């Protein structure tokens, strides 16, 4: 694959109820990424936004974000999935040879709408929606139980993932304040409110307000813009059947396939040894284990046995992952940014030593139905 580099990025501080509007937030992120790269608005040749009409409360919601999102009189298109999918779209536009500089941004304000109710609109309208038994929370309950029963994993082991991520989030200044907790322990996680047994409140990556933006450029231009480009060397993308009853919820076949494609293109043979940092989009604590196992970072069912702390066997979610704040449509994009931050040595407070290769993932759908994985490398 031809090299495409990340030459700028910006993420706003995440809030559960931001005290400023979404347009200011979008502008801050977009302008921040452009300023970081030392560029001007006119340098951007294509804009990919990622929002969701349901989350924005209006149809074709990107028509309202033209000015603030850098889309004024520019080639602009929207992805209605995760921000990480928008990165793929931006990447493809650069690889097409028709565009020089792609601006990708994504985000929303979960404080404006009942997020979990909205997820009900994802379900089959003729069969599942009238009963309203299936939504993101109940399906997470099924997924966690399936994983625990299949591999004999305890709730304590899964709670310890939430503990690690909330402690990591405390070192990440942009994380959601509610997610930052240095003193948290497994007992506290298990004793928090039950969402859908066995999933408890503190295992959930809480929807919040936030926007992130990234700038992509082809190799030659990237080297002109920055002396610290981060290269996208591999990408893979796959999805599973829709109905939960058709899937083995204890594993992620789609992430397995996404990983296979991405690693092949990046020339990675042994991800466990070669990858230094993994920023995974885990909507719930147990998903981090399922996704890590699907990528071969741990054996099936043994995700909880590896040391995934910062500078452990493999550093998984040093930023705190999605648990550190889950602004719909931005979360996967933030994973890509966090991985880039690590590779540039800019993760002050949660930097992984000697980080050379990283993976970042995005997801969408019930029980991470759809997964996308990027392999990123630092240096030029």
């Amino acid at each position, binding site marked *: 694959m031809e090299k495409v580099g990340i030459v700028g990025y910006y993420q706003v501080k995440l809030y559960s109820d931001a005290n400023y509007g979404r347009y200011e937030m979008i502008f801050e992120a977009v302008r921040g990424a452009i300023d970081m790269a030392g560029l001007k608005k006119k340098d951007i040749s294509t804009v990919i936004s990622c929002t969701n009409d349901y989350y924005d409360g209006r149809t074709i919601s990107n028509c309202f974000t033209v000015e603030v999102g850098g889309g004024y009189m520019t080639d602009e298109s929207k992805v209605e999935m995760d921000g990480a999918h928008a990165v793929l779209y931006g990447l493809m536009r650069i690889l097409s040879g028709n565009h020089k500089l792609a601006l990708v941004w994504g985000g929303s304000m979960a404080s404006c709408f009942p997020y979990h109710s909205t997820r009900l609109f994802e379900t089959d309208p003729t069969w599942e929606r009238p009963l309203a038994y299936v939504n993101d929370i109940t399906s997470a*309950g099924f997924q966690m139980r399936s994983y625990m029963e299949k591999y004999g994993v305890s709730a304590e082991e899964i709670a310890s993932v939430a503990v690690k991520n909330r402690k990591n989030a405390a070192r990440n200044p942009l994380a959601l304040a509610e997610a930052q907790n240095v003193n948290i322990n497994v007992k506290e996680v298990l004793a928090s409110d039950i969402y859908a047994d066995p999933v408890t409140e503190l295992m959930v990556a809480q929807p919040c307000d936030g926007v992130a933006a990234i700038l992509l450029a082809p190799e030659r231009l990237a080297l002109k813009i920055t002396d610290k480009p981060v290269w996208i060397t591999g990408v893979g993308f796959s999805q599973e059947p829709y109905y939960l009853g058709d899937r083995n919820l204890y594993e992620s076949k789609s992430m397995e396939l996404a990983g296979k494609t991405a690693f092949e293109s990046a020339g990675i043979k042994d991800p466990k040894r070669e990858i230094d940092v993994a920023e995974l989009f885990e909507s719930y604590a147990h998903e981090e284990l399922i996704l890590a196992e699907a990528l071969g970072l741990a054996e099936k069912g043994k995700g909880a046995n590896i040391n995934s702390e910062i500078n452990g066997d493999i550093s998984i979610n040093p930023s705190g992952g999605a648990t550190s704040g889950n602004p719909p449509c931005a979360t996967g994009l933030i994973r890509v940014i966090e991985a880039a931050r690590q590779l540039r040595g800019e993760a002050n407070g949660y930097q992984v030593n000697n980080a050379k290769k990283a993976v970042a993932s995005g997801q969408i759908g019930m029980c991470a139905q759809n997964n996308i994985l990027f392999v990123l490398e630092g240096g030029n």
Partner: protein
Amino acid sequence: MSEDKVIVANKGMVRADFNFWVGRYLDKFLDNLENKKLVGNKCPKCGDVFVPPRKICGKCNITIPIDQNWVDLPDTGILKNYTITPYRVNDRTDRKAKDLLLGMIQIDGSNTAIVYKLLNLKPEEIKTGMKVKIEWAEKPKGDPSDIKGFVKI
């Protein structure tokens, strides 16, 4: 939301209900439900049995003809998975007094699982792998709620 914010709670100026047609396959399925009968259909290639029936087998990428491969299914199945939630699933801010017990049930003779309530059971009595049976609504209407839930056999 913080108190000092001016909020426009937008309920919408228009009401635009979306009328989904269930399609010919689910139509036949719901007609049977109304008679307290469960039917599915079978992929002619891989042999997977779907309940509710499907027009397309995604795995084989072929159409299952409407006039063929219908399978009569029993009202029994196996509990493959379960969860218990104190929240109304369509709005987690609205706490219900009673836990909602939900199961993923694989109907005997089918290859997928459906999500329904588990009835007359205490949380500690629920075990993955246990045999369950449909509890039908007293007056079936030909919609998904005709299956009230599942009880332990």
